[in-house]
């Protein structure tokens, strides 16, 4: 296998060679090497994936290749493009490389386009700068590019501003801009992380097609192992500024040789891991990792030996892969326990199948409409049908996942249940009390039993309050503690419950990592002894290994305290792992509902089918991806009949006439689609 790689390398010189790349920033009197001796090789037309969790140096590696670093950064090593060392080029010559020979697209299409310039103008800059195209010729070319990346009606879009486009469209514009200079290498830094899964599928497909047609090399930076499995020819895993494993995709998926990579895969929430705790990586990435004498992963590694802490391992060739670990080194392998059995699927623990008891929360006919007001008199000129008729029920100790893409109304459902937004119509019954008519003190008392955990643990805590104050706020508001001593005792207990040391209560939120902050948020919710917690994308902002920790914690708390969760998410893998029931939302309505395992294994509604098939998965296999074109329509003017009909591959005439009624499928499942009627 290694011979195959060798010969391929010989027959064709690589397009990009990175040798000993080191990027350092001044930090605390010295330097922090965020990228530390990275070697990479990209061939023409190849997709090379750079994988790792946040802070591992993968984006910094990309910025270093383009020399797009903030002032004060120091760059060392070699970056050769077709033999010429980019790090040695004068800045003016480097500018002829950027956008021309190497182009880059970024994670956040929302903020990566200039809001005050038209889309056409921003693409034109590249044509002007690198190809000398101006005027009509340039405009023709821009229209061609927009059409090439699949933007409908380019003649209209060319003169629009970024805020007039959807997220997926903006990323297409970014891609068109990158293609304008006809680059040999495209660097894509988490190009689909900010997008919904069906839009992600569109953009990934587009990148694949463009790369094939143009023979362009693609350096794909991602944290999503599913995207790697779907896109990459070769893969490198980064940890703490270094490459720890490099392999061809097939080898990478079959033999994960570095303990870190192995752990990463085990931390993925998947349906087949239901009922068992996810593997987590203890601790977090050390902050001054460049000063560690031994292996940087040693202190979090489950097979680390004394040797690992004394000496730093080299990147060693192993059967066509390269791995930075003593355990694969024949000289030392004997000192390590035999490699743990490959991550084999285990039977799901029964018990998740237990019959649902009487519901704790019952929602029926829930509607939330927001009036749109215009003009001096603020007349109501229309409505946003954010939530338009939702029914659901959750029993104590159960998890209902509410799934859907951004803008479908799932967060609004959560807020309406908590009465943070008053519903326009419908009923929300909690423990046989109608919440929608509850007011003042009565509502405030009831709120104790319903709590909320937010998506972004960075912005959902007041940065000027100490952890103790944050956690104790509910205790005080609900008069659940008598004095300060009792309060501190209760907060300490809560912090222990979520896996934090009680001493941290005197610190401020900024001193914690994302995962720790989310634990504090969970402690805050638990403080008032709730019975139902609405979790709004609680792990979306976290890395895979940290996500696993939080999911384990939530599952444990549910077992111990019989909590009910309404788990709002767009991540179907998390649903499969954690949820008992699932409700799939599209444009304000639930289109399919039922036991999570059954719905995910055999989705019936065409939208659920598309959603499930669009998730990039690690397992190989000929899976048919159901392609959805276009963006979801606006909730201001939902399409007549079934809202999904305009994008549905099976839509018939009657779909446009009426919204399909509920069709029961047995075993607590139902769907709203004419395919299953009569």
């Amino acid at each position: 296998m290694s011979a195959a790689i060798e010969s391929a390398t010989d027959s064709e010189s690589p397009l990009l060679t990175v040798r000993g790349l080191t990027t350092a920033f001044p930090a605390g009197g010295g330097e922090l090497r965020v990228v530390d001796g990275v070697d990479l090789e990209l061939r023409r037309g190849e997709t090379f994936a750079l994988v790792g969790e946040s802070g591992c140096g993968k984006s910094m590696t990309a910025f270093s290749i383009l020399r797009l670093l903030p002032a004060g950064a120091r760059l060392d090593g070699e970056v050769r493009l077709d033999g010429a060392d980019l790090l040695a080029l004068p800045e003016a010559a480097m500018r002829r490389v950027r956008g021309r020979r190497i182009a880059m697209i970024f994670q956040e299409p929302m903020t990566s386009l200039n809001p005050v310039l038209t889309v056409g103008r921003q693409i034109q800059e590249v044509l002007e700068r690198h190809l000398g195209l101006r005027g009509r010729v340039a405009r023709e070319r821009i229209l061609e590019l927009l059409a090439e990346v699949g933007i409908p009606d380019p003649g209209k879009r060319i003169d629009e501003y970024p805020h007039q486009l959807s997220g997926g469209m903006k990323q297409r514009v970014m891609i068109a801009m990158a293609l304008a200079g006809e680059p040999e290498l495209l660097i894509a830094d988490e190009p689909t992380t900010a997008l919904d899964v069906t839009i992600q599928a569109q953009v990934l497909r587009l990148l694949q097609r463009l790369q094939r047609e143009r023979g362009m090399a693609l350096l794909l930076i991602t944290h999503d192992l599913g995207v790697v499995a779907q896109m990459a020819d070769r893969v490198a895993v980064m940890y703490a500024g270094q490459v720890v494993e490099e392999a061809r995709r097939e080898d990478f998926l079959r033999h994960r040789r570095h303990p870190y990579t192995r752990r990463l895969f085990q931390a993925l929430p998947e349906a087949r891991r239901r009922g068992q705790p996810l593997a987590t990586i203890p601790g977090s990435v050390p902050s001054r990792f460049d000063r560690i004498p031994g292996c940087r992963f040693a202190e979090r590694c489950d097979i680390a030996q004394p040797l690992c802490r004394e000496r730093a391992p080299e990147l060693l060739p192993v059967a066509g892969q390269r791995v930075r670990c003593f355990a694969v080194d024949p000289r030392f392998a004997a000192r390590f326990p035999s490699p743990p059995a490959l991550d084999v699927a285990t039977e799901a623990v029964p018990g998740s199948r237990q019959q649902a008891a009487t519901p704790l929360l019952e929602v029926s006919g829930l509607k939330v409409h927001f009036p749109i007001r215009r003009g001096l008199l603020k007349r109501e000129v229309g409505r946003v049908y954010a939530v338009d008729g939702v029914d659901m029920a959750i029993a104590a100790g159960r998890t209902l996942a509410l799934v859907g893409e951004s803008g479908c109304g799932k967060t609004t459902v959560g807020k309406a249940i908590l009465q943070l937004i008053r519903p326009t119509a419908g009923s929300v019954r909690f423990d046989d009390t109608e919440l929608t008519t509850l007011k003042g003190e009565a509502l405030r008392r009831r709120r104790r039993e319903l709590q909320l955990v937010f998506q972004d643990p960075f912005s959902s805590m007041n940065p000027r309050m100490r952890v103790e104050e944050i956690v104790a706020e509910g205790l005080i508001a609900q008069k659940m503690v008598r004095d300060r001593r009792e309060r501190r005792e209760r907060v300490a207990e809560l912090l222990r419950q979520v896996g934090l040391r009680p001493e941290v209560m005197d610190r401020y939120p900024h001193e914690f990592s994302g995962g720790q902050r989310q634990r504090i948020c969970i402690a805050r919710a638990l403080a008032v002894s709730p019975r139902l917690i609405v979790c709004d994308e609680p792990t979306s902002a976290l890395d895979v290994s940290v996500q696993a920790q939080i999911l384990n914690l939530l599952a444990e708390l549910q077992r111990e305290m019989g909590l009910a969760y309404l788990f709002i998410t767009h991540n179907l893998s998390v649903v499969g792992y954690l949820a008992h029931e699932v409700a799939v939302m599209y444009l304000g309505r639930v289109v399919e509902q039922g036991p999570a395992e059954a719905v995910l294994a055999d989705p019936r509604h065409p939208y659920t089918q598309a959603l499930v098939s669009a998730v990039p998965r690690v397992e190989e296999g000929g899976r048919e991806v159901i392609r959805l074109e276009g963006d979801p329509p606006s909730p201001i003017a939902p399409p007549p009949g079934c809202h999904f009909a305009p994008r549905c591959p099976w839509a018939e005439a009657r779909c446009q006439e009426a919204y399909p009624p509920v069709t029961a499928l047995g075993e607590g499942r139902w769907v709203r689609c004419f395919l299953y009627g009569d």
Partner: protein
Amino acid sequence: MLSFFASRLLATGVVLFGVTVLVFALIHLIPGDPVEIMLGESARAADREALRAALGLDRPLWVQLGDYLAGLARGDLGQSLHYRQPIMEILLERLPATVELAAAALLVAVVIAFPLGALAAMYRDSIWDRLAMGFSLAGVSIPNFWMGPLLILVFSLWLGWFPVSGREGPASLVLPALTLGTALAAILARMLRSALLEVLSEDYIRTARAKGLADREVLWRHALRNAALPVITVLGLQLGTLLGGAVITETVFSWPGVGLLTLEAIQQRDYPLVQACVLLISFAYVAVNTATDVVYAWVDPRIRLGEG
């Protein structure tokens, strides 16, 4: 864009009407008898009655307001007590001086502030940054009543380059414009620097650099226009103040503008004239603010076209 204009203009009209009513009420807000205050206690009863009739104070309030508004529509602001001539004439005579000074000061401010702010932001923490911010601090801290005489001392009395005071030819404009302009430049440079620093760390600046644009192009095409938004706000507010007449600077340089006129009118208890000056200052403010909104919309398509 058109509907945006229309709604702005409508709002402006409402504000102007409100301002007019308030200014009209001004003369009735003077504690005691306004006529007595204007003429002094020793005035004869007949004179008081004559003045009361001349001002129309003997008629019902709503009739007075109607007259005032009707007069305003005709461009008639009444007679000045001191100058014994129509107020409109006096204002039209003084207004060009103020507009001229405001425009010159604005020019000075922008010419100084933009390079200074941009330099400071682009070379953050360098010697350029420190020099620019040092100048800015000085500009903000030095009051105009000290800056003005200092400039007169150096450039008029010692060097003899510019006239000491008055308004005769372009040379006489230089010192007052510098006095007002440097103070304004100091604020603007500081605003621009902080706005630019924020914009320069935005993702789309990185995108622009990744396209292969030079720093200069990135600054001109991508950063400045976005950074201009907060600066325009401050500029609008300051320009409103300038158009209302810079009282201190106009006094120091005996510049025959609206500011000086207002001061004189107050000293001479020429209430109809004070009323008119206040009205003019308010109108200038409102007009400049409306203009600011329009410029805003022109610079930022998100305002012009509505958030998508």
